[in-house]
C-alpha cells in the first residue's frame, strides 16, 4: 500500500471517532455557570458600598484597636483542648473535644473558667459555639476558615490567642497546624502553599506563592478560596489581597483567572446554622443565601432559613421549624425576639445553641445586642441570662490558643 493511500485511510479513521457526549444536564451546567457569574457580580456590587457599612467599619475599628493596644509579651502559642458538647435533635448529648494540633496538655479547665460556662441540666458540660472577650484580657482573635466535607459551605474558626505576639503573620502562615480536619469533619483549603504578609499597619495584605503555584483544580475550590479569604480578612483595614509570585505581580487563580489583587468581600446578612459531620464537632456555619440562591435582606428571612435542615449536607436547623416567634428589628442596635413555648426549649444544649446561632446572625445584621424572650423557660439558659439583653459575641467557633 502506498503512502498516500495509508494516509487517506488514517484520515478516514480519524473521522470515525465517536461522539463524546456531556453527561451533565443542560440545567445543571447552566446552574453552575449562573452561580459563578452571580458570585462575581455580587463581589463587584459589594465593592461599591463596602466602606459605608457601619457594622463592618465598627468591626474593623475593634480589630485595629486590639492589634494596636495589645501587648506583645509572648512568643509561642500552643493550642489547647477545647471541650465541646454536642446534641442531636433527640437531645442525646455527648462530650466531644475540639481539634488538638499543638497541645501537650489539657487546658480545658482554664477555658471553662475563661468562658464561665456552667453545668447544664443532666450534668453535661456546655460547648462553645461562640466566644466573648474576657473582661480582664481582650485576647487577640484571628479568624481562619474551613469548609464542610462537601465543599459547599465555608465555616469560620476563631483562634483566640491568650499568649502571643499578636502578629497576624504568625497565625495566617500556619493555618493548617490549627485544624484537624478529621476531628472537626471539615476540609481545609491548601493554605500551606500560600504565604500571607501583613504590612502597612495591616492596610496591605500580600499573598505570595511560588512561580509554579497551581491553584487547586475543581470549580468549587475558587468559591471556597474566595469565601475563606472573606471570613479571614474582612475585619482588617485592607480591602483586597495583593497577589504576587516570586517574579510576577499576579497569580493564576484557576477559574478566577490571572489576578493582581483579590477583593475581600464583606460577610454580612448571614444565617447561622449548625454543621455536624456524623458525630464530630458541632460548628456554626454561616449561610449567605437560601438554597434557591436568594440573599437575606432582612433578619426575618435569615431566621426562616435557620428553621431549615439539610441533613444530606450535615446542616441542621437551630430553630425548630414549628415554633412561633416574633421579631422586632425597629431598633437598629437592639433586636427583640419573642419565642412561644416549644417542647425542645429549656435549659438544655438545643436552646443554648439556638441562642448562640441567633446572636451570631444578629451580629451579621449589625445589631449589638438581642433582647430574647422564650415563653415557658427560666431566664437562665447555660450562662445566658435572658432577663438582660444579650450582647452579640466577639467570635464564632472558638479555638483557644495558649
Amino acid at each position: 500500500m502506498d503512502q498516500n493511500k495509508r494516509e487517506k485511510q488514517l484520515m478516514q479513521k480519524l473521522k470515525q471517532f465517536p461522539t463524546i457526549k456531556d453527561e451533565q444536564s443542560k440545567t445543571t451546567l447552566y446552574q453552575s455557570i449562573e452561580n459563578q457569574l452571580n458570585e462575581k457580580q455580587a463581589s463587584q456590587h459589594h465593592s461599591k458600598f463596602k466602606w459605608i457599612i457601619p457594622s463592618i467599619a465598627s468591626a474593623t475599628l475593634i480589630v485595629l484597636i486590639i492589634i494596636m493596644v495589645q501587648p506583645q509579651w509572648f512568643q509561642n502559642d500552643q493550642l489547647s483542648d477545647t471541650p465541646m458538647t454536642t446534641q442531636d435533635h433527640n437531645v442525646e448529648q455527648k462530650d466531644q473535644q475540639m481539634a488538638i494540633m499543638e497541645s501537650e496538655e489539657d487546658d480545658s479547665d482554664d477555658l471553662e473558667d475563661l468562658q464561665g460556662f456552667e453545668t447544664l441540666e443532666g450534668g453535661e458540660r456546655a460547648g462553645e459555639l461562640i466566644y466573648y472577650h474576657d473582661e480582664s484580657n481582650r485576647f487577640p482573635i484571628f479568624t481562619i476558615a474551613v469548609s464542610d466535607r462537601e465543599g459547599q459551605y465555608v465555616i469560620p474558626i476563631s483562634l483566640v490567642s491568650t499568649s502571643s505576639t499578636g502578629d497576624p503573620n504568625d497565625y495566617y502562615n500556619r493555618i493548617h497546624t490549627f485544624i484537624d480536619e478529621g476531628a472537626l469533619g471539615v476540609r481545609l483549603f491548601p493554605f500551606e502553599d500560600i504565604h500571607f504578609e501583613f504590612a502597612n499597619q495591616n492596610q496591605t495584605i500580600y499573598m505570595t506563592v511560588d512561580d509554579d503555584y497551581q491553584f487547586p483544580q475543581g470549580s468549587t475550590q475558587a468559591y471556597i478560596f474566595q469565601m475563606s479569604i472573606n471570613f479571614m480578612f474582612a475585619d482588617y483595614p485592607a480591602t483586597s489581597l495583593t497577589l504576587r509570585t516570586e517574579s510576577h505581580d499576579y497569580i493564576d487563580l484557576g477559574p478566577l483567572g490571572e489576578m493582581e489583587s483579590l477583593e475581600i468581600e464583606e460577610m454580612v446578612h448571614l444565617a447561622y446554622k449548625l454543621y455536624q459531620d456524623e458525630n464530630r464537632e458541632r460548628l456554626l456555619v454561616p449561610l449567605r443565601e437560601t438554597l434557591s440562591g436568594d440573599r437575606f435582606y432582612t433578619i426575618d428571612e435569615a431566621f426562616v432559613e435557620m428553621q431549615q435542615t439539610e441533613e444530606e449536607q450535615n446542616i441542621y436547623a437551630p430553630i425548630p421549624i414549628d415554633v412561633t416567634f416574633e421579631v422586632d428589628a425597629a431598633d437598629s442596635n437592639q433586636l427583640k425576639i419573642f419565642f412561644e413555648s416549644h417542647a425542645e426549649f429549656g435549659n438544655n444544649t438545643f436552646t443554648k445553641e439556638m441562642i448562640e446561632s441567633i446572636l451570631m446572625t444578629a451580629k451579621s445584621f449589625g445589631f449589638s445586642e438581642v433582647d430574647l424572650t422564650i415563653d415557658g423557660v427560666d431566664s437562665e439558659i447555660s450562662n445566658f441570662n435572658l432577663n438582660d439583653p444579650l450582647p452579640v459575641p466577639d467570635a464564632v467557633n472558638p479555638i483557644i490558643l495558649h
Partner: protein
Amino acid sequence: MKTTFDSLYDQYHNDLFQYVFYLVKNREATEDIVQDVYIKVLKSYDSFRGDSSEKTWLFSIARHTALDYFRKQHRQQNRLAHFFNKDQEIGKLKDQDPLPEEIAEMNDEMKMIYRLLDRCTLDQRNVLILRYIQSLTIHETAQVLEWSESKVKTTQHRAIKKLQQLVAEE
C-alpha cells in the same frame, strides 16, 4: 443571559464538548473547561463583533482555555517531578485517565490511534481534531487557531505524516 446560553448550547454544545474532550481526554477537566468557556463567552457576548462565526469564536475561546489547562497541568507535573525526583514518573502520569466508554468499545487500531494522538504536538492535535473529528473546513480551522490557512494546511500535512509514522512504529 439564559437565552444566549440556550442558543449557544443548543447549537454548539455537543461539538464544543467533543473538541475539548479530545484535546484534554479527561471528562472532569472537560466539564470544568467548558463551563469556563461559557462564562467567558457570556461575559463578553455583547462585545462579540461577528468577524468570525459564533462557532469558531466559541472554539477559539475553548482552545485558549484548554491551553491554560495544559499550562497548569505542566506546572503540576513539574512539581510532581520535583517531588519524585525522577523524570520517568512523568510519563506514567500522562496516561492515567481511563479510556472513555465510547473509545473502549472500538477496535484495537482505533484505541491505538486515540492514544497516539497524545504524541503529536498540541498544534498538530488541534488540527487533527478540528479538521477530521470535528469536520471543520480549512477556513474555520484557521479562524479557531488564529492562523493563516496555509499554516493549517502545512500543519495538517505534518500531523498526518507524524501520526502515520507512529502507527507504523507500533
